């Protein structure tokens, strides 16, 4: 716990834990029996933590979703799969590093895994472009979708991206078109597709991998049409209003489950995935296996119809 840099709202917890540590040291050094006091304090700290983490505001969740120690796509791949074989490139001149994909085994089940990758260090972030894919990344993903479809491999997409990259070259090579084509082609796949939003799921950049039969979110992940900062700067004309935009946009897993946009929420350890990677990875794995089991009963046509019906229902309007 100590190795982590605390977020602003977590500082009080760290202070309490420091105090507990001090008391323990004191009791050891002086031999005074403080066990009872320590025990009460630990219990109180636990209660406080549970209360704090179960009442997080959307902007606090946002900080957890973007935490620099939060496990990334490749971390999960190494924790939940064996025999991972990465497949590179769009076969047209580029290997975008922000979207990665490959085949692997999850407990005897062969799968195609595709995800957006963020780095933990500056060097890594430069390599992965902060998890912001170029059009070529989406085209690589499409190639892998089609590969999986040919060989009947269930596809798992794991998403953590602040959005598709906005740049000159990205516009020249058709960022919008690359995403649009993926949305349309995902609808035609006859193999099950399961999406999990791991951290940030921003805008078309996330959706470009997420027209899935089942969509799940990690508890503290977010899924939104635009980043709260972007929304604030457009609607309020000030990026400082991001907190309020985060509230208004309804970006948390609970909100999206209630709105029927996702199919379920995957539990994270108290405080967020970065406090216990293994536990998060295990929960993730269980959900993926359960969904594959459910979806593999369907025929190719049923898979397509299931997906069509799922998205066909989305939207709220008045007809009169």
């Amino acid at each position, binding site marked *: 716990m100590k190795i982590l840099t605390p977020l602003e709202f977590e500082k009080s917890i760290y202070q309490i834990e420091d105090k507990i540590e001090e008391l323990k040291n004191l009791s050891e050094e002086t031999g005074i029996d403080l066990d009872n006091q320590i025990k009460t304090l630990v219990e109180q700290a636990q209660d406080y933590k549970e209360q704090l983490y179960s009442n997080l505001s959307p902007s606090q969740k946002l900080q957890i979703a973007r935490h620099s120690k939060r496990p990334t796509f490749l971390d999960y791949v190494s924790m939940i799969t064996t025999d991972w074989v990465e497949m590179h490139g769009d076969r047209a001149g580029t290997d975008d590093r922000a979207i990665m994909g490959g085949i692997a085994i999850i407990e005897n089940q062969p799968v195609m895994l595709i995800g957006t990758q963020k780095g933990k260090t500056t060097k890594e972030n430069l390599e992965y472009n902060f998890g912001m894919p170029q059009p070529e990344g989406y085209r690589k993903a499409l190639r892998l979708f089609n590969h999986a479809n040919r060989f009947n491999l269930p596809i798992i997409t794991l998403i953590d991206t602040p959005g598709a990259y*906005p740049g*000159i070259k990205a*516009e020249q090579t058709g960022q919008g078109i690359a*995403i649009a084509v993926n949305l349309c082609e995902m609808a035609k796949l006859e193999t099950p597709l399961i999406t999990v939003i791991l951290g940030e799921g921003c805008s078309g950049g996330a959706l470009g991998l997420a027209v899935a039969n089942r969509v799940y979110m990690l508890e503290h992940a977010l*899924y939104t049409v*635009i980043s709260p900062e972007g929304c604030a700067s457009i609607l309020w004309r000030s990026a400082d209003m991001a907190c309020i935009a985060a509230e208004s946009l309804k970006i948390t897993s609970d909100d999206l489950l209630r709105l029927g946009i996702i199919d379920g929420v995957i539990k994270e350890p108290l405080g967020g995935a970065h406090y216990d990677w293994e536990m998060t990875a295990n929960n993730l794995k269980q959900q993926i296996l359960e969904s594959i089991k459910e979806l593999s009963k369907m025929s190719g046509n049923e898979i397509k119809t299931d997906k069509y019906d799922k998205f066909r229902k989305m939207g709220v309007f008045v007809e009169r």
Partner: protein
Amino acid sequence: MSLKDWFAKRKKKQLNVALVESKISGDDLSKLWDKCYNCNTQLPKKDLEKNMFVCPKCDYHFRIGAKTRIFQLFDEGSFQEIDCNIYPSNPLEFVDTMCYKKRQDEARTKSKLNEAVITGIGKINNWEVAAAVMDFAYMGGSMGSVVGEKVTRLIEDGIKRRIPIIAITSSGGARMQESCLSLMQMAKTSCAIARANEEGVLYITVLTEPTFGGVTASFGTLGDIIIAEQGARIGFAGRRVIEQTIRQKLPADFQTAEYLLKYGQVDMVSKRKDLKEMLERLIRIHSGALKQGANK
């Protein structure tokens, strides 16, 4: 110049014109005259209208609304609107500097439209087509649940009737006030187009000034054939966002129809006056295949 500055400048220009004219005479001359945003020529509104809202001097294509577009493109009296009884609601109770409900009311008054798209069945030189025509005047042509639903129903209708489907876009992107529900409209419309693809029903998109964000990244660019109207600005990310990200000035022709043609992103750039004839030609060439599909 960023999109925002451009709008501000344009508004200021319009105000100035109105102000000067009101001084000259008591009449509301701004109702009769328009100024070309490109070459600043004063143009009589009647002439401009006759010229399909294209400047006769410099060929600048003015942005036009859905109703004008329908009037220009479809055989007289042939366009029958469908699904005009679908209205937006406020599922997220969204409030920014103004309540979403109030924004809807304002947009309706300003644009005289119920939502940002008109859908219907019409004829282009006697060829029956299903068409969705967007209007930037209603909340920047943004796509929320209503736009998504109307476009999807139209595509389904076009597939059922086995007639070509045409989408004419003009949109700033997904509607933020409906957040993820708007995002899902991208998926919904794209799933419907997947069906049109599989059924061999021709789908043509015409990208007009301006087409951005969620519409570019969904049904806007999924056309079997993509036409961009001359001078239209089309892209995924907005100019300002890109400038802020890369901290560079962008070339003047960046994200124009002609720029996209150069980089292989659209099939062609069309002048407004040639659009109807081009659509007819495309439909005629594909008509054999469409009929064959019907006998499948």
